[in-house]
């Protein structure tokens, strides 16, 4: 095996791949890897090259949620024969977006198990015990307490009304709902969706949310002042928090993490948001070398753990995820064993069924939620019209019977 392998990737992910390049090249000395942090409009250029059949890299990063869209083009290399054997080593929630009709076209890279980041100082000041917060109801009452005791200054969480679909997605995984059913039909109109929406409604009604756009200047500012007490988010968010918050001399920044609250007592306390995959476009001329790199970077414990240590990329590979070396206490979070906390029950998540139109569907969901938030969050069913919009726009059928179930639930 020999030759050059060009990889398109972005930000920290690209740096992370670059950092394991020397180890890989020690492993496969004749393969030379070039990681291209490819500048503007990477997704658009990748798709253009895939359509044109010219100019795609040998290996490319994709968002986990975008993977089904690219797989449906039929222009990615079928990796079933080489990657199929790793199926059991990845959580179903992420593996599922790499597969179409039983064929594997992508390999999961990292995952985004979610938890709640909180500011210890605020919790101490108002006497809140994070260990008591095991349901969203308790989370909301803790938030109300903080709001009242701080004289309205400190909100519990940031929740931009233009980006409600992320938190809704977390809640939907916990309630066991789906946007698409197993056959790719629209299943959003369900009691589970209403259950998830109800949590959002209660949060906003309690006045504990701060309406700032996600990742905006104001949102970032909330990390360092006391306008916001907690940030529900994925494991990869810790990198961003660590970047903006300066830790004290001991490396302790007075932040902590607790597990996601459940919807019902005893319910699921984990969900997955984001994460990436690597793919090999069909036009790649050096597939064995490209695969060798992917296999080393993503399917080997060594490659994944090196990336976690170097860049905080949370491995999707279960053997790496459960490796004892992941269990280190993090001084930033006052010595908490964070990774364990994130990954408990990760395999129990019901995977959301991803289709080629997932990203677009999510856009409609987001629009509907923004509209719902802007128009007073009435209890009326927003999911029936949303399901119809999705069905019309995406030109797929509604899942049968779902709306009946929903009707029953309303009674």
């Amino acid at each position, binding site marked *: 095996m020999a030759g050059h392998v060009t990889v398109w990737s972005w930000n920290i992910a690209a740096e992370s791949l670059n950092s394991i390049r020397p180890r890989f090249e020690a492993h496969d000395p004749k393969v030379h890897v070039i990681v291209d942090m490819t*500048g503007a409009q990477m997704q658009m250029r990748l798709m253009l090259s895939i359509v*044109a059949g010219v100019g795609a890299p040998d290996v490319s990063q994709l968002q986990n949620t975008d993977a089904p869209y690219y797989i449906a083009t039929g222009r990615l290399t079928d990796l079933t024969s080489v990657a199929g054997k790793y199926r059991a080593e990845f959580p179903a929630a992420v593996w599922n977006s790499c597969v179409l009709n039983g064929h594997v076209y992508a390999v999961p890279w990292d995952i985004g198990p979610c938890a709640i980041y909180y500011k210890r100082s605020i919790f101490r000041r108002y006497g809140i015990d994070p260990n008591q917060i095991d349901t969203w109801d308790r989370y909301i009452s803790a938030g109300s307490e903080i709001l009242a005791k701080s004289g309205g200054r400190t909100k519990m969480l940031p929740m931009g009304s233009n980006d409600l679909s992320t938190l809704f997605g977390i809640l939907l995984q916990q309630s066991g709902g789906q946007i698409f059913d197993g056959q790719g039909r629209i299943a959003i109109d369900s009691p589970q969706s209403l259950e998830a929406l109800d949590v959002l409604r209660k949060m906003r009604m309690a006045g504990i949310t701060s309406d700032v756009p996600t990742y905006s200047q104001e949102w970032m500012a909330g990390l360092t002042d006391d306008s916001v007490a907690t940030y529900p988010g994925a494991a990869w968010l810790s990198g961003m928090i660590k970047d903006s918050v300066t830790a004290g001399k001991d490396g302790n920044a007075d932040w902590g993490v607790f597990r996601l609250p459940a919807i019902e007592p005893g319910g699921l306390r984990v969900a997955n948001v984001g994460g990436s995959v690597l793919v090999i476009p069909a036009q790649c001329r050096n597939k064995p070398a490209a695969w060798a790199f992917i296999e080393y970077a993503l399917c080997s414990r060594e490659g994944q753990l090196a990336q976690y240590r170097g860049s905080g990329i949370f491995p999707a590979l279960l053997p790496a995820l459960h490796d004892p070396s992941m269990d280190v206490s993090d001084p930033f979070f006052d010595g908490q064993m964070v990774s364990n906390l994130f990954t408990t029950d990760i395999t129990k998540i019901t995977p959301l069924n991803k289709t080629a139109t997932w990203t677009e569907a999510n856009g409609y969901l987001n629009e509907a939620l923004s509209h719902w938030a802007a128009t007073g969050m009435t209890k009326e069913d927003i999911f029936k019209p949303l399901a119809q919009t999705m069905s019309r726009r995406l030109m797929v059928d509604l899942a049968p019977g779902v709306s009946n179930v929903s009707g029953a639930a309303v009674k």
Partner: protein
Amino acid sequence: MIAHKSPMINVGRFSVYAFLAGLAVVFLFPFYWLVTSAFKTQAQIFHMPPQWLPSPPTLQNFVNVYHHTTLARAFLNSVITTGGSVGLSLFLCSLAGYAFAKYTLAPGHKNLYGFVLSTMMIPGAVTLIPAFLVMVYLHMIDTYAAVIVPGAVGAFGIFWMRQYIASNVPDDLINAARIDGCSEFDIYWRIVVPIIKPALAALGIMQLIGSWNNLMWAFLVLRTPDMYTLPVVIYLLNGEIRTPYGMLMAGGLLSTLPLVLGFLLFQKQFIGGITAGAVKQ
């Protein structure tokens, strides 16, 4: 006798000059900022209060842009595609313009010319997707031809050349050449082309500006770094995170300079070229 100027007129003229001077400052300022920023470090570019002149000036941006981007290659690509596009377009437009100007009795002449003119009404946005697909189907993606050929001969160019040839090339000259036994192509090449040089210059300059600055089509059809033209390289360098402004300014200056210098040297032809556009109505 020298006309006596009233003080009113003097005040009026002074304010006109003041207005023009102010306007010139505003219009030239972005160029000034481009040039000075190219010699600043990233920190100097964002220094507050702004540095009106880089102190100290640095050449590092030019070194970086040479080593870390394909700018040199892109410059060559831009020269090739622009050259090809200008050359081909001048040849084909003047040839067709000559035909429409001087073979007025050919059957179908009027309808064909009307058809040519009517194609000016088609907006590029409508044909963009299929034009891209045609490139894919013809395996022209990522070639110089993909940038040069589709815009090589347009209705406006033909119209412009026809107008000029019809009023500046005498029929007698063509007839005389025929009698001397010149072939039809020779008449075009040896008799017509030398006469229409001013029109060619004007059209060429318009084509030059459009082709050198083209971003969208080049972005779509050029797919590998070896083929990128200057606007594409500069656009991609303007990535979403940690934009390297120093390099962008250096690269931007290098790709702006040829046309600006060309313009300052051949101002009359440039303006003439654009005025040609005015005749379009």
